[in-house]
């Protein structure tokens, strides 16, 4: 009757480790939301930034929110999209039918 005790003990330890990691994430989240996120929000507000600086390989991957959905294909008539990040970015979600702005764009 030893093995099941070891198994249950190990499972409990694993749950505890995971719980501690989640608790750590909660603590970091609280600290960041108090300090780091407001500092970043201030930066976005002052510098009027619109996009995350993740993909710097092409204009439409550097500023996906500022580009048209068809920008990757604008290089020349019937151009293909060829940047790897283009396959990571999802196609934009269909616009809400109630938004006149989307229809007009």
């Amino acid at each position, binding site marked *: 009757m030893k093995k099941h005790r070891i198994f249950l003990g190990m499972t409990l330890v694993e749950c505890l480790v995971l719980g501690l990691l*989640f608790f750590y994430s909660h603590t970091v989240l609280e600290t960041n939301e108090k300090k780091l996120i407001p500092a*970043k929000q*201030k*930066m*976005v507000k*002052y510098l*009027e930034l619109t996009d995350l600086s993740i993909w*710097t390989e092409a204009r439409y991957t550097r500023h996906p929110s500022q580009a048209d959905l068809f920008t990757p294909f604008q290089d020349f008539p019937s151009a293909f999209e060829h940047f790897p990040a283009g396959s990571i970015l999802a196609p934009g979600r269909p616009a809400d039918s109630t938004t006149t702005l989307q229809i007009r764009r």
Partner: protein
Amino acid sequence: MRHLKILEYALSSLLRRKYKNLSLVAVYAFTVSILASILFLTHALKREAVAVFSDAPDLIVQKVSAGRHDLIPTGYLDSIRTIAGVGDVHPRYWGYYFDAMTQSNFTFLGINENLAGLELVQGRMPAEKGECTIGQGVAQAQFTGVGDQLVLIDSRRRSISFRIVGIFDAASNLLSNDLVLMTQRGLREFFDFPSGRATDIVVEVYNPDEISTVAAKIKKMLPDTRPIAKAELFRTYDSVFNWRSGMMLTLFSAALVAFSILAWDKAAGISGDEKGEIGILKAVGWDIADILELKFWEGIVISLTALLVGLTVAFVHVFLFNAPLLTPVLKGWSVLFPTFRLTPYIDLYQVFVIALLTVTPYVACTVIPSWKAAVTDPEMVMRG
């Protein structure tokens, strides 16, 4: 007590084939960790974008010419100001620069000379024409620091030297890695902007509910423009990192397929040894229910261990080691790619989804073939 005894027997049974089962747990945990890493990473990036862009411009107006983004006449500012509900309207000057020396793209942004300092900047903001503040990525690519010179080639092929007066803190890398800030005057001269033109126009709208109405009015008044509302910015990042994104579709589905093969292999049939074991257990008086419970415990032991280990590995991988296995996939051809420490946003719903997607099918795949063997006559089962 009876359940514990069956669990004890299940563990003994698993330990009899310990190398096979250990390798099964390792592969299973690896699959779970890949699935969980992708979910953790995309969710954290999405939440980060939503959190930091809450103060982004309400409306950005671009000029579109022949289907392409073009420089916008600053004369449009006055037309936009006449719209009711519009607050501050001002031009934004920014552009891209390809640095041939480092083969990387920088984003140049022109700011007002009197802009106050930011917490996330070591040093200060550029206050005159020959000064700049740069992101960590630019500093590392150019091997420069505060007080050094940044030499760039302007649009007239002249070599222009900027004094670096500040560097963005690494904590802001997700926003500033490739940024080069300079004064608006400096940027206009560098790119040789035609007078009376800007990159785009920032519009403040007093009432957030009126943003789309104002955008529609701008579009009607200035048909060659494209207004981009803040809501669209959020929608972009929501779709970039949602389940339809390439990242989720390629990596996530590959891991899911790998897991399905694993489960299918298990469901496709149990080995002769296992069938023999079931036959013996029935012959010595075990009920079908007992055998099913035994197999259920075997499935739970394997899948629960793999799930907990996989989730722990995924958390450590994404939030403590900054996802080194996923960043090469994200990076693509970007020369400047930010090293970022993500805020660990965890969505418990996603954790439950992973648990449901992995534990339930595996346990089912363990129990169902055993049930088939258990309902057969013990002699037939033992004969194979």
